[in-house]
């Protein structure tokens, strides 16, 4: 397995753009990434596209707009982890020596089709009977409050922090800050989750150019490398399991740290799946940033804010940067690359050398998550 570098990244500002076509979202992100890499277009040998709701061949639809045609193109869907899955696909082919250079694209146009909760499969045993993602996380929140005394205020702080962070992110969907009272006072979605504790729907795209480490120096000084790439699915959870933990997340985190040869204490920055505020708290624990049950305290004591011990979601996270489903995984990668290169401007985490991205996707009955993908990047 060869080492793989990320030599270029691009991302369009996320938002609601009902008048923009799917191709108009994806093409600029691809251009940015290729121009950032400073590599010839004809060097790209493979492209993976992560997308959830578009349908047939979303990758080819976008790539023909920039004249990137004729190469191997794979379209992947893994719910919220689609973009990370795309990145992993390109990583795996380069690591295995099949190709030297590839592009990962994540793109979603959803504002024209989805308002409110994302409709899930009507035949699935759980989602077909009314389980929606905010409800699942609300129920996990209730268990966390029951078992560990986590408070509504601690959960709201995740939203406050991530909205504060996004003020400095020109590509974020929102730039407004909220007080804790405003977060708690927003409309109840599924108790205890309120509106500002749930990520928005939106449109957007992000892209990354990867290449074999051994040729990366031609394009980038001190290139960012991928130290770990993990993608796993959830185990059937018919037997009672602890809803405050994630078997899937735990297994993915363990494998990622083993692959990278480091531990949570070595991370300088992380982008994690804060589709709901409680999610970020649960992921702190899954990723070993704090012991089980202490996630509420971790945020309350300010450790995960920019400037704290382990800044989480300096981009504003899904809550404020936005969550166009297929784009998110690649956008997380772009943020960590900018952080490791020292290009994050006012939201820069000082001295960041090691970063982690984490995505958890999928509402299917009987499993704690459909797909969890973790990447660890190093510079």
């Amino acid at each position, binding site marked *: 397995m060869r080492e793989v570098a990320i030599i270029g990244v691009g991302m369009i500002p996320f938002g609601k753009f009902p008048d923009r076509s799917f191709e108009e979202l994806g093409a600029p992100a691809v251009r940015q990434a290729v121009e950032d890499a400073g590599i010839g277009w004809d060097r790209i040998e493979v492209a993976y596209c992560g997308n959830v709701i578009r349908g047939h061949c979303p990758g080819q639809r976008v790539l023909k707009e920039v004249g990137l045609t004729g190469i191997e193109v794979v379209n992947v869907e893994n719910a919220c982890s689609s973009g990370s899955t795309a990145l992993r696909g390109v990583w795996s082919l380069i690591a295995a020596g099949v190709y030297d250079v590839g592009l990962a694209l994540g793109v979603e146009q959803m504002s024209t089709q989805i308002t409110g909760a994302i409709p899930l499969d009507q035949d699935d045993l759980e989602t*077909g*009977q*009314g*389980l*929606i993602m905010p*409800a699942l996380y609300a129920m996990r929140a209730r*268990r966390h409050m029951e078992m560990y005394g986590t408070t509504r205020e601690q959960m709201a702080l995740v939203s406050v922090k991530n909205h504060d962070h996004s003020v400095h992110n020109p590509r974020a969907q929102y730039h407004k800050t909220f007080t804790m009272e405003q977060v708690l006072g927003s409309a*109840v979605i599924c108790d205890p989750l309120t509106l500002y504790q749930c990520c928005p729907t939106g449109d957007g795209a992000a892209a990354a150019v990867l290449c074999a480490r051994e040729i990366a120096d031609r394009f980038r000084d001190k290139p960012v490398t991928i130290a770990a790439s993990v993608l796993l699915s959830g185990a059937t959870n018919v037997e*009672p399991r602890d*809803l405050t933990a994630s078997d899937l997340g735990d297994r993915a985190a363990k494998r990622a740290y083993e692959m990278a040869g480091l531990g949570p204490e070595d991370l300088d920055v992380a982008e994690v799946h804060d589709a709901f505020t409680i999610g970020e708290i649960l992921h702190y624990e899954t990723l070993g940033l704090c012991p089980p049950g202490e996630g509420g305290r971790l945020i309350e004591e300010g450790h995960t804010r920019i400037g704290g011990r382990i800044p989480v979601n300096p981009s504003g996270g899904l809550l404020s940067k936005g969550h166009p489903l297929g784009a998110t995984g690649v956008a997380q990668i772009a943020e960590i690359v900018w952080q490791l290169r020292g290009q994050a401007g006012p939201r820069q985490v000082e001295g960041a050398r090691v970063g982690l991205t984490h995505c958890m996707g999928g509402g299917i009955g009987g499993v704690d998550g459909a797909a969890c993908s973790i990447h660890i990047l190093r510079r």
Partner: protein
Amino acid sequence: MDTERFEPFKPGLFELTDGPDRAPRLIGVRCQSCGRYAFPARDICIFCHSGQVERTPLSSVGVLHTFTVCGLPVPRMLPPYAMGYVDLPEGVRVFAQLEDWREAELEVGMQVELCVGPIKTGEGDAKIVSYKFRPKR
């Protein structure tokens, strides 16, 4: 139940017993190889992959492990609706909507019992019916 049109959510998930009250019971499976119970019934044990499974009714009283109330409109659902995960004595956890609930009385750990009721709208004016749990009074 005969003034509106009702349709079952999916076949094979529960049955009504013969007694005068026609009490419902969930149809689970017990694996004859490893002994574990599962719901819904499948032809293979999802734990040990043995094909030696037998269908068996599950207990109708359980513990409410967690719950939430959904207030926002969700296509085909009937808000506000409450839902939760119920732990049954056989070591099985079941997701279901709740019936006959009052938000102030819902509590983690409360005893709930199986019942049947509408969960969403179907074709035309039909209501889709499934198993639900209600507070055991």
